[in-house]
Structures are given as C-alpha cells and as structure tokens.
C-alpha cells in the first residue's frame, strides 16, 4: 500500500503508478458527522490542485472538496451514491471518493501522517 499523504484541507491521496486515489481523512469525516450526500464530478473532468471539485454534505453542513493534486478524474466511487455513510465508516477504504490520472508529480506540500495529525489537531476544523 502506497503511503497516504494529506492536504491542509483534509483530503488524502495515495498513488499507484500514475493513478491517485482521493478521499477525506478520518479527522474530516469525524468533524463532518454523518455524511448524507456527495456531489461529485464526472470522469474526464480536469482538476487543478486546490480547485473545489465537489461538495460533501453531512447532516450538519455542506463542505467543499478540494483537489489535492493536478490531473483528470478517471473514476468516481459510485457506491457513495447509495451509501454515502461509507465515508464515515471506512474513510481510507470503501469510502474513497475519486481516482485521478495524475499530471506531473505529487505536490510537495502534501503532508505525511504525522505532520497532518499535528496540523489537524492544531488547526481544528
């Protein structure tokens, strides 16, 4: 399993070859509370790092999702349409959100687990 990297906006990325898998962190899902809906892009959509690509709606609030990498959406997790709660129950597994064909390298400012934890705990939500 590739090492998981995190953005300041609480998305995670793992990379397998040129394909990145994107989701939201366990910290983020806990902060959001029960996820009830995701508004996601279609495959083929080009993403720039930092761009809002979708919306995640919990019972409490709607939040934007930000692309942690540059690339093109190659797949979205169709299971989330019927079971958005997978983002809560298994944020790093079944609750993945997008697959992206990476353009270029992983951005250098993505954090490893330790740095992310520090940043999340310090910054709250």
């Amino acid at each position: 399993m590739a090492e998981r990297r995190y953005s300041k906006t609480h998305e995670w990325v793992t990379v397998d070859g040129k394909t990145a898998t994107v989701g939201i962190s366990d910290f983020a899902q806990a902060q959001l509370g029960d996820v009830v809906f995701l508004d996601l892009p279609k495959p083929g959509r080009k993403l720039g790092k930092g761009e809002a690509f979708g919306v995640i709606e919990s019972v409490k609030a709607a939040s934007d999702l930000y692309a942690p990498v540059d690339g093109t959406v190659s797949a979205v997790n169709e299971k989330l349409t019927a079971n958005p709660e997978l983002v809560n129950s298994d944020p790093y597994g079944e609750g993945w959100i997008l697959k992206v064909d990476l353009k270029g390298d992983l951005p250098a400012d993505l954090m490893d687990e330790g740095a992310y934890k520090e940043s999340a705990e310090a910054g709250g939500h």
Partner: protein
Amino acid sequence: MANRTPLYDRHIALGARMVDFGGWDMPQQYTSIKDEHLAVRKAAGLFDVSHMGRLNVVGEAASDFLNHVVTNDVAQLQPGHAQYNLMCNEAGGIIDDLVIYKSADTDFIVVVNASNREKDVAWLRKHLPRGVTMDDKTLDVSLIAFQGPRAEELLPSKTSDTRHLAYFGFTKGAIAGVDGFISRTGYTGEDGFELFVPSAHVGDVWDAILDHGRAQGVLPAGLGARDAARLEAALRLWGNDMDESINAYEAGLGWTVKLEKGDFIGREALAKVKETGPGRRMVGLSLQPGSITRHGSAVLRDGAKIGTVTSGTHSFFLGHPIALALVEGPSLRAGDTVSVDVRGRETPAEVTKLPFYRGSAHSATAPARN
C-alpha cells in the same frame, strides 16, 4: 469558557463530540447522529438537556404574573400539568418559547431555552410583581430527557409508576431510586419523559437508564439527533424558526395564543395579526435526496423570492431532506412545488403537510394544547 453540565465527564467518557450550544459545552453526537436518531424513533434515546434554563416562580400572584407574560392561559393549568407557551414582546414577536410546570397553585417551574436564559430572566424580573419570587435553579437541578416509543417500558427499576401520567402531566417521583420530578414531555415527537433530578445524583440516574436499556437499543443521544427528531415532528426551534421579529401566528403557533384570557404582553399586536391574517406562514418542504437546504436559504416561486428556509436537515427516518420555511402570503398548499436554494442552485421542493412525522407522542405538533 462554556458552561458544563454535571454530565460533562460522562459525555467525554462516552466519546461525545462536544459543541457550544447557547453558551454550554454539549454533546453533538456520541457515535452517529443517524443511529442516535433511529434509536429515538424505534426504542428510546437519552439526552442531557441540563443546559436549558429552569426557573422557580413562587407566590400568591405567581399564576397571574406568568399569565401576563405568556400567550397561553396559565389560569387553566392544573397542578401536575405542564403547558407550552410563548413569551412575546409588545409587538407580538417571540422572546422565547418555554414550558410552564404547575406544581401547586402558587408554585411553578419555567423551563426556557439555554441561549435565552439570561434575557428571559431579565425580562421576567422587569415584570415581576411584589410578592412573587423567581429563583434560577438551572445549576442545582439537572434535566435529562428519555424519549422514544419504548421509553416507558425501558425505565430502570426503582422508578415510580408512570402509567397514570397523561401527556404533559408531571409528578414527584423516584427515577432509579433518586427523588425528582417525572414529566411526560419532550422535544422529539415521541412519547417519553423529561426528568428533573438533583444535580448531585443525575449521574447515577443517567447510568442506570443506559445500563438498563442498552441491550434493548437505548442510546445516549446528542443535539444532532435531537434537532433531526424535533424537525421531523415540526417542533419549532427558537433562533431558527422563530425570534423577536416573527410573531406567534407566523410561526404557526397561534394555538398557543389565548386572546380571550385577558390582557397580556403582546396581546394588542397579536389580536391585530389574527384579524388581518399573518403576512407570512410557516410551511413544510420535502426535497429530493441529496438536496439539503439550510437555515437562511431563499424560497422562490415563479422566479420570485417568497420566503426563507428556517430549518433544514436530512431526515434519516423519512429518507429525504425536509425543511421548515417562512413564506409570504396564504396561497401555498400541500403538494405545491416551490424552488429552494441548495448550494447556490434552484432546486424543487414540495410543500408538505406538517408534521413530517407523527411519532408516539400524543400529538407531535402541538405539545400542551390546553
């Protein structure tokens, strides 16, 4: 620092996510809003509502005093019964909604919203006549709510028999061996109890209810589940669905206004509203799955703004989003379609008869219709 209830340490031990609510550090959820909400609908949920203000009002003229500051007819209230009420300003705007419990002819408990407690106390003090005393007991007495269709059968042992208690009735009694008040009231649309317990012993009562009920599906439930349950039951939330700029008739709470009872603060203004009809009305809206609308979103019809969403959430029990909205004019009917702003997009919503869900409470929309 925010206030903490005597159950704070238990909430933390149960893994609660705490949020500030009306100046109090309260549990938003323990495990999942969905699970906690469904526990309330199917078995029972246990809520800490000790943040709500509890005022003792005592004196020969206590009844007349309260009757002068609220809309419902306190003179009709019998000892051992509670009554849902609005406290209005001179313009008929809602200062707070509250429940008045009559213990004896000269002895009342008033339960008010946490966020309004200081404002309410100041307002009441301003109108308090000689010979009536008001004591803020919020910190001495804790309040927990045990709500759900199975709440009665799942009360722990050493609890007084509640089967004689009518909806909105209350009595002195023991809960898990601790003396307090047992009230058949709530804010979820379900049958159940609000339990007034001395703060020194509320932890024991809390533990006893959870220990006894866990195997039967009882869960501790947070503010998230409470908000979802109350919205399905179309119970209004002060600060969302009503405030000082919204009058009782607009909020759909005209049934609490007893114009014929004699003079009270706001009566003149409310009588005028009743005569001409309210300019705005509260309606229910149902939306397609995923289209959750929130407090403050615009409601449109034929492209024109006709009102504002006052509360909105996803109803786990019904499987789609629901909302309350305050809209202009009397013309909307159940089944009509309007548009609502959802994340910047106009989204269709169907006007829905209230309440969205009628639970096991004797009347889900209308606590204390007396």
